[in-house]
Each structure stands twice: as C-alpha cells, then as structure tokens.
C-alpha cells in the first residue's frame, strides 16, 4: 500500500516536471549522474580543488555553448565561433604585448578582444539577417576569414601573454578561485538576459519567423543581436583560454566549433529553434567534459577512449533529443 503510494507520488512529481518549459532538466540530471560516477571511479575528483580545476577546464566551452544558444534559439547556427576564438586570442595577446604588458595594457587587450568578438558577431548577423545568406554556409565562410585574419596577426603560436594576466586568472579573489567569479558573473548575465523581452522575442523568431515578423517583431535586429551575443561570449571564452594557456595561438579555436553545437543540443535546446535555454547549454558543456573524464578514470584502454567517448556522446545526443521531444 505504502509502496504504491510512493510510486504514484513519484510519477506525480514527474508529471509536474514540465520538460517543455524546463528542457534543461535532463542535462542537469545527467551532469549529476556523471559527476557521481566520476567520484565513484576516482574519489579525488570530488575534492574542491579538483572541482575548481574542472570548472577552469570547462569554462571556455561553457561560455561558447551559451553564446551559441542565443543563435540557435533563433533557428540560426554559428560555425564561425572557432574562428572568432582564434582571432580574439591573437589580437588580445598582441595588443597586451604591444602596449608593454602593464595593467592598463591588459585592460586594453581585454576590451579590444571583446570588441573584436562583437564586430565578428555583427558581421555574421548582417550576412544572415540582412543579406539573407544560409547561416551554415555563411558562418562557415566567415569563420575561414576570421581564422585567416588570426594567422595574419600572428603567424605562429607562442607569443606569451603578460604574467599578470594568467597569474590573476589562475589565482584566488577573496579566497574564491577567479574562474568561479567569471562563472558567477556569466550566470548572473544569463539570468538577466533571460528576464528581458529579448529572450522571449528570440524564441518567437525561432518558433516561426514569419509570424514573428508579422506580429511586428524586429526580426533582423533580433537575429543580429543573437549573433553579437554569440561573438561576445566567444570572445570571453577566448580570454579564458588565454588565462589557461598564457599565450596566443592562431589555431586554438578550430576544434571547438562542433563541440559548442553538441553542448547546445545536449542542453535540451532544439536546433530547429524556438525551444531551449542557455542554462541547459552550461550543463551540456559540462557533460561533454565529464564524459571524457569518466572514460579516462574508468580505465578504458588508451586507444579505445575516443571511440567510447564518441559512442557515449552520440547516445547522449540521441537521448537528449528524444527526451526533449516528449
């Protein structure tokens, strides 16, 4: 009797969990599952130091995935984020070095880097929303251009970032790791953006662009804004990568583009637009990282790690899409 009541309470709880309104819930559940599995396989990963190190590793992808989400919500896609990361990375480090590496130079480098990201995003938005290019082809082409400019600015990897920059990035601020401050600042920003009419309008554009336009929404402006946000978040991701690697590398971003799309999908956002949430993408990026970690700690032989990782990611993508549709 009590057991039956327990089950019905359980199912009632699940009925109350509205996945259509909260598509990120499965991603949170999977994150917790993978995190526990990781802790079970290697208890040391549960220590605060290890968690902080994990967050520092995952942070660039988290930022990139959040930026990509805004574009995907409006049913576009940005394949140039890798190029933006490379470009911002080399421009920022070059500016910092050229200005002598003082605190002022570092601030200037950060500002110029963010500006580059915004300009790249605005360019993508212009091509897609005003010139009406197909987003996949257009951002692929612009990504090549961005990566090319990055190679022009800095032909070879290895220009060192000022010590003060990466020392601050890797240090604590009021007893809390600096990366956690960035994560918190990002979370607040994402929460604030979610409260804006902008977010709801973006969902409307992704859901049905024609009706959005006919009900008077500034569709091109919204899409451009989404691309600008994506460029800005990619730029911040690049700034974090500089803190990690302490140097400029024109080929840095190449591998990250498709990962950001995968993270967005893992977070429950529909690629067709109109449904999803940047919160899910944060966990999607963490899931991608944790899968690699679990496969490593599970003692999978070295040569099979990529295959097992690929299979788990595919299964997670398939599962995420299936659950999000319910």
């Amino acid at each position: 009797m009590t057991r039956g009541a327990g089950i019905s309470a359980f199912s009632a709880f699940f009925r109350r969990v509205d996945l259509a309104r909260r598509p990120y819930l499965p991603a949170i559940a999977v994150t917790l599952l993978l995190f526990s599995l990781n802790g079970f396989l290697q208890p040391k990963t549960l220590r605060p130091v290890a968690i902080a190190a994990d967050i520092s590793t995952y942070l660039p992808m988290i930022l990139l995935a959040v930026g990509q989400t805004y574009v995907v919500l409006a049913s576009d896609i940005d394949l140039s984020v890798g190029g933006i990361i490379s470009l911002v990375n080399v421009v920022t480090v070059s500016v910092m070095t050229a200005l002598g590496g003082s605190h002022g130079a570092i601030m200037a480098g950060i500002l110029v880097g963010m500006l580059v990201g915004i300009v790249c995003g605005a360019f993508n938005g212009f091509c897609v929303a005003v010139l009406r290019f197909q987003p996949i082809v257009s951002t692929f082409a612009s990504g090549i251009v961005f990566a090319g400019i990055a190679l022009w600015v800095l032909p070879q990897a290895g220009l060192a970032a000022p010590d003060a920059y990466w020392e601050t990035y890797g240090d604590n601020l009021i007893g809390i790791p600096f990366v956690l401050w960035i994560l918190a600042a990002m979370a607040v920003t994402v929460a604030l953006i979610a409260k804006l009419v902008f977010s709801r309008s973006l969902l409307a554009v992704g859901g049905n662009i024609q009706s959005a336009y006919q009900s008077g929404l500034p569709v091109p402006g919204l899409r451009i804004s989404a691309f600008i946000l994506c460029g800005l978040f990619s730029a911040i991701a690049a700034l974090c990568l500089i803190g990690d690697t302490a140097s400029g590398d024109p080929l840095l971003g190449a591998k990250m583009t498709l990962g950001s799309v995968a993270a967005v999908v893992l977070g429950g956002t529909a690629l067709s637009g109109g449904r999803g949430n940047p919160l899910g993408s944060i966990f999607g990026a963490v899931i991608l990282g944790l899968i690699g970690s679990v496969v490593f700690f599970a003692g999978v032989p070295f040569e099979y790690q990529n295959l097992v990782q690929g299979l788990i990611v595919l299964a997670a993508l398939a599962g995420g899409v299936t659950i999000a549709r319910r």
Partner: protein
Amino acid sequence: MAGVSSKEVIAGARSKFDPTALLRLPMVIPCLLIVILLILGETASPGFASPGQIVKLLTLAALLGTVAAGQNLVILGGREGIDLSVGAIISFGAVIAGNIMQGANSMVAPALLGAAGAGLGIGILNGIGVTILRIPPLVMTLGMLGVVQGALVAMTRGIPSGNAAPALSDFITQPVLAGIPGILFVWIGVGFFMAWLLSRTAFGYRIYAIGTNERAARLSGVSVWRMRIGLFGLSGFFAGLTSVFVLGYTGNSFIGVGDQYMLPSIIAVVLGGTPLSGGQGSYTGTMAGAFLLVILQSILITLQMEEFGRQIVFGVTLLVLMLFYGRQLRLRV
C-alpha cells in the same frame, strides 16, 4: 500557338529581356564563374588553364564531386538534411582499403568493396538515427563523426598504415585514355548515374517530393523513412567510394585524410545551385560547384599567397558568391 513562328517567340522573349533572369538559371552562374576564374588564373600565371592543368584540376574535382554526390542526395531530401560524417567516413574507408590492399593490385576490388560497404553501413546507421530515432541530421551525423573518428584511433592507434596498390594510383593520377585519368571516367559515370537516378527513376522523383513537402509526399504513399535511410546510406556509400580514390591519390592512408572534404562537399552542393532547404537542384550543378571550388583553391595556391591570405580570400569569395545563390526568403507582411 500554331501561327506563331519561332522568330516571333524569340522576339517576344527579347522584348521582356531581363539580364537577372538569365542569372537565375541554375547552371549559368557556376559555369560563368568557372570561365572567369580560369581566365583570371591564366592571366595571373600563364599555363594555368592549359589542358594538362585542367585535367589535374578535374581530378581533384572528381574526388570532391564523388563525395558531394551523396551530400547532394541527402540535402535534396530536405528536412535540414546534411551529412557531417562524410569526412570521417573517407578517413575510415581509406584506412580500411589501405589495410586490405597493402599495395597489392589483386586486392583492389576487395578493398573497394570493404570501404564502400563500411561507408554504406555507417550511412544507414545515420539514416536510422535520423528517421526512427528522429534525431536532427546535423546532430546525428555530428555524433557519428565523433564515433567514426574514435573507431579510427582504436584501429590505427594514430599510426598511418596501409598503402595504395600501384594499379589504383595509376588509375587515379595517370592518363589511361586520350590523356585523361581513369578517375574522370568514373566521375562521368557517377554523373550519369545521378542524372538517371534523379530524373528517370521513381526513387529520384520521390527525393524531390519529400524535399519539397514531406507531409504531402507521405500522404501520397511515399515511405519517407525508408527513402531517407536510403539517402543517408547512399551518402555513406559515395563517401566510402571516395575514400578509395583519395587513397589512390595520396598513396597511403592516415587518420585525418578525409577531414578536408567535410564542409567543402556541402559548399560544392550549394555552389551548384541546390539550396540547403532541399527539394530543388541537380547533380550537374554540383559537379560544376565542385570544379569551381577546386579552381578557386588552386588559383590561391598558384598566386603564391601566404596561408592567411589564401584563407581570407577564399572565405570572402565564398561570401560574395553567396549573393548569387538561393538565399533565405524575404520576410513579408
């Protein structure tokens, strides 16, 4: 109409002559651009458009064009159809074929079967994921890309292995008839096959049907999911076929050999006049698109530009070309 002479029809057409209408014909733009680029190349570096050089360019275009045939089918089938796994399949197939062949002429046929079969299998898995599990093609093939790359690392441990047989390499790179390498005859064969498939078979008509309006096609009795599995299977098959050609071209197989074909195969389809939304377009256009892309890349190398300059010019040119192609619909009230 009986009393209207052909001259009057032409005169009537001319009176409404609109130069932009000419540009809207599907094959005109890529062919025009090919001619312009060849002239540009010839001016920049005499000999660029010599017959021998054009055959070399066509050989490269044949490699890209064969994988783009499958990509074209998947895109024509609509519902955001796209195959991101073709690059990984080419790498995978090249390693399989290279290891079956091990430089022996007698093993070319088994190697071809092995690579094409592996591609077909991966493609069918993609199709099952897209239809039965209803995963968006971009996501499914992106996930498959990771799996195939992982399988490659597991198979090779990252060490290049396997060699092309001399007969295969000769067939791909050396002239077999009238100064033309065998690969070009294969490509022409692929072109005829695709033209027959798309315009002479029920399967071909159904591809356009599901690409234009999937719902209407399903209600008219087309088994959409079976069609789509077939399309992804064919895409994998063509990528597997390409892998053997690529192996013959490069001589040996290594993990990343196919990566450079993934996005260009999509671009070739788009430059050939098939919009990513599907339902319209032809493989003849895609062949022109593949040739166009290869010429463009080759000119940038001929001009002895540095890597950064090549990338910037290539990307900007693609963006400019996009102005002429199927753009998104204008929003109207």
